């Protein structure tokens, strides 16, 4: 081979190559004009912004291909703002690239580690000043200081205690009591079994007693789904079967995984599906988990009818509803 092989050593910074505008005044003038045009476009953008703010009504819509109907005021302001910002930026960068000096320069670096002498000096100073405080000798001060510093962190922690009450039994209780009527959500009407056809689902809540108000905390624990199957479709233990009424079965609507509302019922498969992480519960088998991350079936509410024929709870839930927690016993 005749061609010269490269040397494997640092050849140093490459030669600087000049731009056209560095040497040709006409090119420089042209670049200057381009920068000025960009800055002017930005000013026009601001004018569009001001116009849209003052003169375009907030309830006016215009049709834009692909995007569909758009609010004219928001769109006008947005496009105006976009232009005013983008073109300032483009102008500045074009200016820097075409007209400002473009030779790269070198600066030196130094190691961060201090000189040995300085390091030694520093250590000596710290030792000397430390000795002056007498902390090493006066162990009584040292220990009591340690104690007070250790304890002082407790005060701010303690202050946070009043952020909320203790949970007590709250996570284990709902508003459902023996004989509480099931009412529709949101209209609040009591329901009779005949209101539900086979295959139908309804979301219900416990009926409010006079003077009671419904809070979101209640809804978050009390929400129940009613599903009506044909009685022969159940595969339940005799006890659980006695919790249903004429093919109507009631489950807590709050997912046992992380508490989302289990809202999707597939009539064909008789599966309840939680849209959050797709835990799937099999309704005829007491909401057994057949897929997904939930580890427990949805708690079943025992129901029956009262003397007037309205659906009521036979008794409260027999286990806590919703996601698990440390104190939960099963």
């Amino acid at each position, binding site marked *: 081979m005749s061609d010269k092989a490269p040397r494997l050593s640092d050849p140093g910074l490459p030669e600087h190559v000049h731009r056209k505008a560095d040497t040709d005044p006409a090119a420089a003038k042209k670049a200057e004009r381009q920068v000025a045009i960009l800055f002017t476009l930005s000013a026009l953008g601001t004018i569009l912004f001001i116009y849209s703010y003052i003169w375009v009504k907030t309830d006016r819509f215009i049709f834009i291909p692909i995007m569909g109907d758009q609010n004219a005021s928001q769109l006008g302001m947005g496009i105006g703002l976009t232009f005013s910002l983008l073109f300032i930026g483009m102008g500045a960068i074009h200016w820097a690239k075409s007209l400002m000096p473009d030779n790269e320069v070198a*600066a030196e670096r130094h190691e961060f580690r201090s000189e040995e002498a300085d390091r030694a000096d520093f250590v000596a100073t710290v030792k000397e000043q430390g000795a002056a405080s007498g902390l090493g000798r006066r162990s009584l001060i040292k220990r009591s200081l340690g104690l007070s510093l250790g304890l002082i962190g407790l005060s701010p922690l303690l202050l946070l205690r009043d952020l909320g009450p203790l949970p007590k039994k709250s996570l284990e209780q709902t508003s459902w009591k023996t004989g509480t009527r099931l009412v529709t959500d949101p209209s609040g009407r009591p329901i009779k079994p005949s209101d539900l056809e086979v295959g139908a689902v309804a979301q219900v809540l416990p009926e409010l007693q006079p003077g009671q108000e419904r809070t979101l905390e209640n809804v978050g624990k009390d*929400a129940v789904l009613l599903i009506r199957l044909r009685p022969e479709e159940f595969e339940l233990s005799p006890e659980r079967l006695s919790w249903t009424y004429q093919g109507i079965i009631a489950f807590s609507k709050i997912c046992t995984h992380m508490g989302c509302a289990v809202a999707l019922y597939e009539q064909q498969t008789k599966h309840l599906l939680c849209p959050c992480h797709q835990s799937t519960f099999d309704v005829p088998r007491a909401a057994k988990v057949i897929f997904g991350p939930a580890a427990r079936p949805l708690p079943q509410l025992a129901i029956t009818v009262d003397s007037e024929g309205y659906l009521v709870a036979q008794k409260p839930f027999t286990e806590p509803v919703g996601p698990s927690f440390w104190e939960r016993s099963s």
Partner: protein
Amino acid sequence: MSTGEKVAGSVANYVDERTGAAKWLKKNLTKVFPDHWSFMLGEIALYSFIILLLTGTFLTFWFDPSQREVIYHGSYLPLNGIHMSAAYDSTLHISFDVRGGLLMRQIHHWAALLFMSSIVAHMLRVFFTGAFRKPREFNWIIGIGLLTLGIVEGFLGYSLPDDLLSGTGIRIAEAIIQAIPIVGSYLTFFAFGGPFPGTSFIPRIFTVHVLLLPGIFLALITVHLMLVWYQKHTQYPGPGRTEKNVIGYPLMPVYMAKAGGFFFIVFGISAFLGAVASINPIWLYGPYTPGQISAGSQPDWYMGWLDGLVRMAPPIETHAFHHTISWNILIPGVIVPGIFFTFLALYPFIESWMSNDKREHHLLDRPRNAPNRTALGAFGITFMLVTLANGGNDLIATHFSLSINQITWMSRIGILILPPLAFFVTKRLCLSLQRADRELVLHGKETGRLVRLPHGEFVEVHEPLTDAQAWTLTQHEQLPALELPEVDAHGVLRPGGLRNRFRAKVSRSNAEAIAKPKPDDLKGIEDH
């Protein structure tokens, strides 16, 4: 002298006589910054943070962080007369009745996505080029802190409007806290001021979102930038670039004009997205109530991986001694993210432990020259991509007509197999690229030109690399693996033998490389 110069002169004089700043400023205004497109990623993060401060402050003027119940009577008719929280009501007000309000909301949300994306891209750049090595470990840790807090900040912001979608997100966060053994129930009751959802949470996270975390961000970003300034920027290898210098443009005027201009461009792009691309149309979801849900809910992408992990978790809980431990929540929600972020934060120290390299580094690595690190990065990215894909498993299912069941099982298996596979493939790929570099330096570029030798054979002409090209491919050092003898000079087994053996093994894997060409290798060729 023009009037402008005169005024500037007397201002400078006034300031300098009171602060002595002239000397410091002169030195720093000419500070040198190396130029490369990948150095703009961190800048984008900084600029989008500033955009978030500006647009967020605008939103606070109308946003009412309260869960007090009100009845809506604004100009969005489909929700007229509906009961909702004041937070949701005021977000509707910003969207429909404040001029430019929806625009600002959308810019705020797009800037938040840009903020998180640029932080991640910036982190990947720093990782793959080895910019985190000594002396820049502090800045790596600050960066991981910003990333983690950014995820929290974004989640809290997303939760503020109290719509059905974001309320569901809060419910899930509550379940994660509640699952923590022993203290979980207490922590949720303290956080929510009682049972979920209560009326305290939105006001509380509002303070955290607009005051506490932005303050911490500001402090961390300041330290981060001061360190970049003081330690000087790293640079890519090339002719004339060494560990002892920085090659680039002076701050004043070139870098200032470019960076300033770039800020406006980032702001302009956010404004454009806010103007034309609808994001988080909360009026379609309705107000939050724990009894309802909107189907097909998707969190922002920086939370999507967590959602994907939760979705693929096996349904395991332990019930014993009247207590419950929810592994199905703790593993994906606490343990795996904890391990991932801890490993990420500690990586600079892990690498220097593997290579036993305690020196300063200012020249960046080409990723192929650090095969082990690059492969680990590919491991992490693949892990995250599998979780993200599983976070959208319902979308993928409908799109490709697969069952969610199938996709979840694919993800469960994929998360175990694909990351190690990515590690292996990437490492081999890096070594092949090293081999290709070696060939290039030794034998030059193929030119496609054929010549006929005197005895009739055809050979292709290879053009040798220039000195500069060859230097760029060979300037890196190749450190040998750590030798940790198990026995000392007297043949006695050293303490910590097992640990040493492990370290030596890891170090060998870390040091694997194709020997780069040395000047002697080239001499041999020329002699032919």
